């Protein structure tokens, strides 16, 4: 197993380096240039050349890439000329807000999706199962911003009980000071995440229900509730680690959409504003960061799976 883990870590490193190469190439393939974005459309070629020389943008691409990689290895994601801040500072500033939004939504989604999945497995092909499946299908098929929009239309525009906008404070303490405004963004992201999880939880629980240990537990006369909570729930928790790991890119993408929709002060919104304003260092810094989070999430999921489930053997 140690060999497996080392091999997986090696793979992850290769993938992350590959991502940086690809992002770097993309940055130079895309039409807009950093100098143009900063100096404006009327900048003279001389001014652009001077800007490029000043910021090392006139070196050959491989040299620039190595400089970019060197900065990344030192934990430096880039520098936003537009906002006159390092990308690290921007990300670190918004990170607590994202941890709050994504974290709470993720926990809520798991707390709902796991019991519902088990209930569906037990009540398989009955009304409860069909209803839950139907709701999950619709949630899954709905463009995420449409779901948020429906919630806004109903709770903010019609009923006027919840604000349509997330807390508009820049810091985490300010955001927490306005919990009512957090309800709709968190509810939206939670529902989307439940839709991502629920099918998986259902089939996972169905798989577990057919296992021998469940039959053994039944045969020795355990009550249904004991079987469900002591055996089924525990075993259905194993794939959750995997599930959360592989869902990271999806959750981050939906997180961005939710942040944009509710104007939630998070990294996703910072990314969105940077993309709109042509703030390329921020765009590419956050892209690399999200890609790295995806790879690390997958890595942790795989390792957790190998560690948690003694039945899995890797040679």
């Amino acid at each position: 197993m140690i060999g497996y883990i080392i091999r997986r870590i090696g793979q992850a490193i290769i993938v992350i380096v590959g991502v940086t190469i690809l992002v770097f190439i993309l940055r130079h393939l895309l039409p807009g240039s950093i100098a143009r974005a900063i100096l404006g459309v009327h900048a003279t070629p001389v001014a652009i050349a001077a800007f490029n020389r000043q910021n090392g943008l006139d070196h050959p691409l491989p040299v620039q890439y190595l400089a970019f990689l060197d900065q990344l290895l030192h934990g430096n994601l880039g520098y936003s000329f537009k906002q006159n801040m390092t990308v690290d500072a921007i990300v670190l500033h918004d990170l607590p807000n994202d941890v709050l939004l994504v974290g709470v939504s993720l926990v809520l989604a798991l707390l709902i999706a796991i019991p519902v999945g088990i209930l569906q497995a037990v009540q398989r092909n009955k009304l409860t199962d069909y209803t839950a499946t139907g709701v999950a299908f619709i949630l899954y098929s709905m463009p995420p911003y449409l779901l948020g929009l429906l919630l806004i239309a109903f709770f903010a525009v019609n009923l006027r009980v919840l604000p349509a906008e997330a807390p508009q404070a820049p810091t985490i303490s300010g955001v927490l000071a306005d919990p009512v405004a957090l309800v709709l963004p968190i509810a939206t992201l939670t529902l989307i995440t439940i839709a991502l999880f629920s099918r998986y939880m259902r089939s996972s629980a169905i798989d577990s229900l057919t296992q021998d240990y469940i039959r053994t537990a039944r045969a020795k006369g355990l009550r249904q509730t004991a079987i469900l909570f002591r055996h089924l729930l525990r075993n259905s928790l194993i794939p959750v680690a995997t599930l959360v790991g592989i869902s990271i890119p999806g959750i981050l993408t939906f997180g961005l959409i939710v942040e944009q929709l509710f104007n939630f002060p998070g990294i996703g919104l910072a990314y969105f504003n940077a993309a709109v304003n042509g703030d390329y260092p921020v765009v590419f810094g956050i892209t690399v960061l999200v890609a790295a989070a995806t790879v690390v999430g997958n890595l942790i999921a795989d390792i957790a799976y190998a560690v948690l489930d003694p039945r899995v053997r890797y040679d």
Partner: protein
Amino acid sequence: MTDIAAQAPASAGPEGGEAIRHHDPAWRMILRAFTENKLALAGLILVVVVVLFCFAGPLFWHTNQVATNIMQVNQRPSGKHPLGTDDLGYDVLGRLMAGGQSSLEVGLAVALVATAIGVLYGVISGFFGGLADTVLMRFVDILLAIPVVYLFIDLATEFRPTLVLLILVLSLLSWLGPARLVRGETLSLRVREYVEAVRTMGGRSGRIILRHLVPNTIGTIVVNATFQVADAISILAVLSYFGFSLPPPTATWGGMLENGVNFLYDGYWWEIYPAGLMIVLTVVAFNFIGDGLRDSLDVRLQRR
């Protein structure tokens, strides 16, 4: 990463014991899926209705979806405009049909192109194995790690794509799933006796791949392609919301929704919900078909 995906539980197969029917030709298995599985049938009927609405509807409901009409903007639903008009004076019912055409075209085309690329890539990677497989699959991992929607938001600020370009870009980002699935299947198929037999008889790799391996993964391919259509329509709607969509006056459902959002507080519900409903209906329908086919063809997929 693939090691885990292969072990992820798939939704259980069909009820009863007749799970494996790989002796039938693929088209008959697909046909049976629709006759036996109510969900798949419902999905198919829904798709037929939507396709008829979008492509045959304009034959009966004539509207001008090119020229704007400033004299009749934001009108409530009435006899003349059953679903009202939008802020440019387009008839919303007619625009739903026009938008459906482009959305369905993009969805189907992306599914076809992405599946074709993915199948070839996956089968080659799985068949040749070794170093080639490692390199090819790491490349897939790299692309999978890059947040696609993020990139599109950036792309949207740079340019607006044409129909063909939009299909190509979406396809280039959607072939990763089928590539991994088909590679996984190929790994188990390539050591089968019949592959060995073809090799003994002097069959070349190309023949083994195209005549034996690809046809044997057809179940996986068909099921995945169905989900691909749903995903493509859904992603297209998301991208339209962020402005990466076909240029006007071409309509898409996502574009209509994005435009309608501006009027949420004005109470112009007809500019928002009909388009949203069409997206949900169509995506649900293709997901139903995919689910039904998967159960009937007994395909194990990592997702859902």
